[in-house]
């Protein structure tokens, strides 16, 4: 058992109470809390070094630019990117996927082409592709999930033919915890010349990620689910593809020259960073990955497997509770979706909130998955480095209480 509870002192919010009870924050898959190290890094930039980046030739701008660019190096290093210039700062995961859909998809897809996704995808890895499909005439096809909520690749040979030009897959589901078969899909996709776009919104925060080993062409992730601020994320891509890809947004900072009727683009990554970027957010992102590197991503993953195992065991004690996700904690992420008897997820969330327990309720931006599972909503508990077993216990007590409130026999 890896005990990371000493980290809790870095997260001031964890000391507060909610409705008179100690806070048990179990919604880290939606967004994590922030350690003081991240807050201080952002504060320090604003207090002591702040100016716009890449523009001024004066000291403050030089310092801000250096801070912004060193954050890029840190975040690139975190996912073992071979070249820090392969890391494009974006507004977040959603924006990163949209960059690829618009930038790569509009130019490279046409009628008759296919975009292969999986049924566990977040709306962020579905809707941009639907939009691009509408523009290009390409068609969406989906890989199913099996009884253990794993992406079913048994029929991959049938579905992955030369019509498929893009494969989009989540490396870790925010609903079921399913770990997407990225390597297998990438190997098969590359054989037919398709590119692979990985939604790393959950996998990058929760497990060690090495883009070279992953085999993907693009990886999207965001800072706010990994101790960093909102408003910033990243798109990693293979340099060769980034160089070919058109920018989805135009404006300042992303050009080499602008004339009245045409422009030339700046080199990667600036080509994809139109306008003034979120500078302090980038610095916060850098501080967040530094924090995670100190904890060690292997320790983060081990801690989460421990907590998931414990939570799955304890939840199994509750009558009428159904978990939607892979059974083996070693083979899944830490997002645990469940329903309890006939109590709707929103009612569960309200009752748990009265007990100080914060969980998410709803469709978790994965409506196609919910339709596939034939459930309108689930409640979801999820963890991060600061989560502890006592919070799982508090959740379990709250769920027993919910049974009482609803008079479930």
């Amino acid at each position: 058992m890896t005990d990371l509870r000493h980290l809790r002192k870095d997260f001031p919010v964890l000391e507060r109470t909610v409705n008179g009870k100690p806070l048990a924050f179990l919604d880290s898959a939606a967004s994590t809390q922030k350690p003081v190290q991240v807050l201080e890094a952002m504060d320090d930039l604003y207090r002591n070094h702040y100016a716009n980046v890449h523009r001024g030739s004066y000291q403050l701008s030089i310092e801000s630019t250096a801070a912004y660019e060193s954050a890029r190096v840190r975040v690139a290093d975190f996912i073992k990117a071979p070249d820090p210039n392969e890391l494009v700062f974006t507004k977040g995961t959603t924006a990163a996927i949209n960059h690829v859909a618009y930038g790569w998809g509009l130019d490279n897809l046409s009628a008759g082409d296919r975009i292969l996704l999986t049924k566990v995808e977040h709306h962020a890895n579905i809707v941009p592709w639907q939009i691009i499909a509408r523009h290009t005439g390409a068609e969406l096809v989906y890989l199913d999930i099996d009884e253990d909520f794993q992406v079913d690749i048994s029929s991959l040979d049938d579905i992955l033919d030369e019509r498929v030009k893009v494969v989009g897959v989540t490396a870790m589901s925010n609903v079921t915890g399913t770990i997407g078969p990225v390597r297998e899909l990438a190997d098969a996709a590359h054989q037919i010349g398709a590119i692979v776009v990985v939604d790393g919104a959950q996998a990058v925060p929760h497990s060690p990620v090495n883009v070279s080993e992953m085999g993907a062409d693009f990886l999207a992730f965001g800072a706010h689910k990994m101790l960093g601020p909102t408003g910033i994320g990243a798109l990693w891509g293979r340099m060769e593809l980034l160089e070919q890809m058109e920018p989805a947004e135009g404006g300042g900072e992303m050009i080499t020259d602008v004339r009245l009727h045409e422009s030339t683009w700046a080199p990667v990554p600036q080509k994809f960073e139109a306008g003034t970027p979120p500078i302090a957010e980038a610095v916060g992102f850098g501080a967040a990955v530094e924090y995670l590197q100190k904890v060690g991503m292997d320790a983060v993953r081990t801690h989460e497997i421990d907590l998931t195992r414990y939570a799955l065991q304890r939840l199994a004690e509750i009558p009428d509770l159904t978990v939607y996700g892979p059974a083996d904690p070693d083979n899944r992420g830490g997002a645990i979706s469940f329903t309890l008897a006939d109590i709707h997820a929103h009612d569960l969330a309200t009752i748990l909130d009265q007990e100080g327990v914060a969980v998410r309720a709803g469709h978790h931006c994965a409506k196609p998955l919910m339709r596939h599972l034939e459930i309108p909503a689930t409640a979801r508990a999820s963890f991060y480095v600061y989560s502890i077993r006592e919070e799982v216990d508090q959740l379990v007590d709250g769920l027993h209480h919910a049974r009482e409130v609803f008079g479930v026999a």
Partner: protein
Amino acid sequence: MSLEELYRSVILDHYRNPRRRGSIEGDHVHAEGLNPSCGDEFALDIAVEDGTVVDAAIQGHGCSISQASGSMMAEAIIGKSLLEVDELIHKFKLMMAIEEGENPIDESKPGAVLGDLEALQGVRKFPVRIKCADLPWATLQDALREVTG
């Protein structure tokens, strides 16, 4: 703020045994409502004859608050004139603090003003859930707009 106040037994009863579930065969108006943030769905059929609601039927799924609110609403509007339904909607929305104004409910005479619907008063204290209680009523307003053209 107590959970017992929110989840009165009347509410749980309407959630588990919704009244007027189904659809209307003959002439009717149909309206649908959706809370995109939580996925709650509610649909309503109403039949209006000579300015009076003669039948109502509900469909959909969602949390206990939205579904119970819809069930009670369907029962409450049958037999009422369109004017009375408007008045009911207004009172309900005042009770739930959706519309600004004095709460019409008489604490000393529970049920006297809005009947079973008064059980939903507790939702006022859970602001994020008010939209759940309101979903059927917003759907009813859509249906009425269609009736009156």
